[in-house]
């Protein structure tokens, strides 16, 4: 669908939108925290997808992951551009399902997901929580430290050690 979209196929683009918009809107909504902003960002995201689909090559990233990454990055850019204000907690981070995977994922992606899941278990609870919250909430170090009521340095070391352990584990299982 994405490849066809890249060739200017409007129907394919519509199909891609129908299949992915709920996921991408969910991403924008959680990170932007405001419905109107999320709608605006979502529109820009699909415009970007329309423009860039021509350059998409089926490879390591599945189409939905590629699109979701665009959405998350764009939502974070919007968030960072807002004047500093108190962001309300978006709620608990989604639990990683043991097996739930999007239908469009390939075998390669399933393996990646399993690897990541296993490697996450190698982390301390605090490290895991910090990294997951960063991913799902789009927070900065400063925001997260405030939320967890810990010094900035403490939070940074949780994340950094967590990332290091993740990297070692992922590298080892590659």
């Amino acid at each position, binding site marked *: 669908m994405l490849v066809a979209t890249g060739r200017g196929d409007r129907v394919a683009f519509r199909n891609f939108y129908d299949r992915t918009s709920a996921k991408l809107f969910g991403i924008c909504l959680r990170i932007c925290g405001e419905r109107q902003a999320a709608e605006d960002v979502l529109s820009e995201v699909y415009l970007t997808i329309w423009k860039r689909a021509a350059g998409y090559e089926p490879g390591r*990233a599945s189409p939905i992951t590629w699109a979701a990454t665009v959405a998350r*990055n*764009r939502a974070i850019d919007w968030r960072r551009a807002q004047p500093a204000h108190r962001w309300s907690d978006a709620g608990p981070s*989604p639990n990683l399902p043991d097996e739930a995977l999007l239908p469009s994922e390939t075998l390669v992606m399933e393996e990646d997901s399993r690897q990541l899941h296993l490697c996450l278990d190698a982390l301390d609870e605090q490290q895991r929580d910090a990294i997951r919250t*960063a*991913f799902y909430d789009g927070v900065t170090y400063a925001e997260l430290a405030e939320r967890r009521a810990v010094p900035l340095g403490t939070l940074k070391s949780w994340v*950094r050690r967590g*990332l290091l352990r993740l990297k070692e584990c992922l590298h080892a299982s590659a």
Partner: protein
Amino acid sequence: MPAPDTDITAGELALGLLEGAERAAALRRLLSEPEFAREVERWRAHLGAWFAAWPEVEAPPGLFGRIEASIDSRPRALPVRVWQAATAASSLIAACLLIALFVRPAGPPPLAPARPLVASIAPTAQGSGAPIAAVYDTATGAIKMASAAAVPEGKSAELWAIGSDGAPRAIGLLAADGPSRLPLPIALRGRIAAGLTLAISIEPRGGSPTGKPTGPVVAAGTLIQA
């Protein structure tokens, strides 16, 4: 294996945890260190597995209609969100690009230019090869590139417009081979004029995920009236 510091900072950038000066520094590295850029891409690919758990929310009805309207540039356009983000990053990236480019003062925007706007997009210090000829076709609102840029395996060449404000704005991806035709985003059509700089950067497959150049700028040229 890259230095641990590279791995961690790349992960922090991929997660979006950085802000202010730290973020600006990481974005600079994204532009100037290919290994760092690759590491950020690797993190994004790993983290991508987590999207599966993200709760879905149905998009508002009619949104697709608005998106299509933007593509077709009907009068009712989407509000353009400009991330002022006076972040050091965006102005620094713009400054780096400008240092490498020669920007002529913009001429008056042509109402209906009788002569087409052309540019010779020549290699910068980070690029090589023959210049690529580009023509802006006012009838179709598209930029036609006569040839492709040399691109490493697994990458895409992306075309940017840089106006007098120095901020790069994405136009689109060049074809892997041969000539390309890149329709100009509506927001840019008002800016096309002699003096505008066109630049090509090397990006991950599918183009820059950040909306700003993340890879080396390999060629640049200025639009002039033919």
